[in-house]
């Protein structure tokens, strides 16, 4: 088994592709984490190389499959463990069939896996458009925290800046400790590092939380209880950020 280890950046991945073709050794596994190698395994460490990456990028611009670079950028936001291998396999399928649009060949496992990867990201974006909850702080801005599986904070911002254009808000990804800030005009991304974010909520916030909980409980039809269906739409992992479900978590 051949394994490539690199630093996890886009340039690094493109360099890996260059090396795979140039050295004629196709990796079975590409990762940015240390691996436990087995007997007979070969592990290569790939250094970033701008020039090589540029050549692969140019190559990808010329292929018949549309939106490769756009899809690549989106796929890199994935939080899936084997994402680099999935992306590599897809790009290899694309480069090997330069003259054909392979993006819809769903009989090919490599393409299907890549489509599933993208689908997971876009699905999560769509879900969090609904499941993010803002709370008003004492200073008048709105704060939301959540723990997405994929790195989607930046991709969520256009949606919220369009609809809450007049409202200053922060979306905080507590898993990666990344914050996206909007002040009413421009958007900015801040890496929290090891810092801890503290927000003082406004006095009204408790009331709104209670109003919302009242609404949530009242709109339910008890005679039609279907807990399983609810959980399939709203898996427990989302509950911790939803005021209406926090109570349930404690009782669960």
């Amino acid at each position, binding site marked *: 088994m051949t394994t490539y280890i690199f630093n996890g950046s886009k340039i690094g991945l493109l360099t890996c592709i260059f090396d795979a073709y140039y050295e004629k050794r196709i990796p079975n596994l590409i990762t940015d984490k240390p691996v436990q190698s087995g007997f007979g395994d070969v592990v290569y460490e790939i250094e970033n190389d701008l020039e090589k990456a540029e050549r692969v990028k140019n190559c990808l611009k010329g292929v018949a499959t549309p939106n490769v670079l756009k899809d690549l950028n989106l796929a890199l936001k994935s939080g899936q463990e084997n994402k680099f291998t999935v992306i590599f396999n897809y790009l290899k399928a694309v480069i090997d069939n330069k003259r054909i649009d392979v993006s819809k060949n769903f009989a090919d496992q490599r393409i299907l896996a890549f489509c599933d990867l993208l689908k997971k990201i876009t699905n999560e974006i769509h879900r969090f458009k609904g499941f993010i909850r803002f709370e008003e702080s004492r200073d008048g801005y709105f704060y939301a925290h959540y723990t997405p599986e994929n790195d989607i904070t930046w991709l969520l911002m256009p949606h919220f800046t369009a609809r809450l254009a007049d409202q200053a808000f922060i979306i905080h990804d507590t898993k990666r400790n990344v914050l996206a800030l909007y002040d009413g005009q421009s958007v900015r991304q801040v890496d929290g590092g090891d810092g801890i974010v503290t927000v003082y909520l406004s006095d009204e916030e408790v009331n709104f939380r209670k*109003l919302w909980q009242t609404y949530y409980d*009242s709109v339910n039809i008890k005679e*039609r*209880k279907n807990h*399983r269906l*609810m959980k399939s739409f709203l898996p427990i992992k989302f509950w911790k950020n939803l005021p209406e479900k926090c109570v349930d978590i404690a009782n669960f």
Partner: protein
Amino acid sequence: MFFKSFCWVFIMLDYQRLKILTESAKYDVSCSSSGSSRRNTPKGIGNAEISGICHSFTEDGRCISLLKILLTNKCAYDCQYCVNRRSNDVPRAEASPEEICELVINFYRRNMIEGLFLSSAVDQNPDNTMEKLLETVIRLRKLHRFNGYIHLKGIPSADQKLIMRAGEYVDRMSFNVELPSERSLKLLAPQKSKAGILLPMDLMAKERRQATSIRYSKFLPAGQTTQMIVGASPESDGHIVRLTQGLYRKFSLKRVYFSSYVPTNDFNPSLPTVPVGLLREHRLYQADWLMRFYGFTAEELLDENENIPEGYDPKCHWALKHPEFFPVEINTAPPEVLVRVPGIGFRSAYKIVNARRYGKLDFEHLAKMRVVLKRARNFITCKGKFLGTENQLIIKNTLLLTATDSEPFTQLSLFSNDEIKRSVLIGEI
């Protein structure tokens, strides 16, 4: 700071009234926020997303997308099936238009909702009620510059001018047909009339068609819907799907919602005393989808007096009645034929049609594309191969089995029931 919170107490709805007005509104099934792509305006708040967004899900598994609320539940009517009927002993409340607006804006800013679903009991008379609904909507759009989604319930028999005016401000409007036949309507909702419900629906459909034929219009961008109660009256499923189809064709509705009857009142001799199973409602929705997206007609699905069998879905029901249509060759069949195969839905059909351009498909490819082969294999061939059986009885049994075993990964034990044992023996699990 003090002044702000002082004001707040006066404008905002209190918990009790919110509870009463929501509990009275919850039997309206529709809560979708799709179909409109209204943009935000400068200095405004909100927009509408074409796909709709769910913000939460209630314990009964329904999506919460809009703030669903009544202006008041004090009703002059006495519809037998309705929780808000005049003669029912329930707590009554009302909210002012401004209170509703404040609540919507504040929930919206916290990303709890997509917008408002506003309805009302008939307070005094239809015109008076419609006027109040209209006032709330205009206030929200003009004063609060709210551009989120608004679904407004129309009051039957209200002044047409009021109704048409509301259509210019809201995204979606709906008049409930309430019951599947005029006879049942007369019996259970004596104050409502068929004409009072269908006339405004027709008017709005015409206005919308005209408006959209010119260019993108702001008149009801998300169209109209309606709702009927299933199981409170004796109509058959065959009758209901025909009515549904007629509504779609005549009024270009976006959706027809079914609500299985839940007893909400004291004992009433003209109504069933037990709730109708949710399965019937589910099967009707399946039939509804088949008519809207899969190219089935009501006549194909069911005979006039027939009910949908509860054991399997209406597509399987149709497939079993039409053995001459099958088997279908995966590699050559057109997409509209593929979607008629039980176990192949729209997504699988899309994948099949695209993938077969690159090469012939086999069963293993279909499995990877998540076609439900358990159901599909009795109706398809791949490269001429057929892996199913032609014995109708066995097909029926597997369909029944796949429809009922909602948890396919059961740990087997010595005391497993017969059904699971059988499925193990024939290699299903």
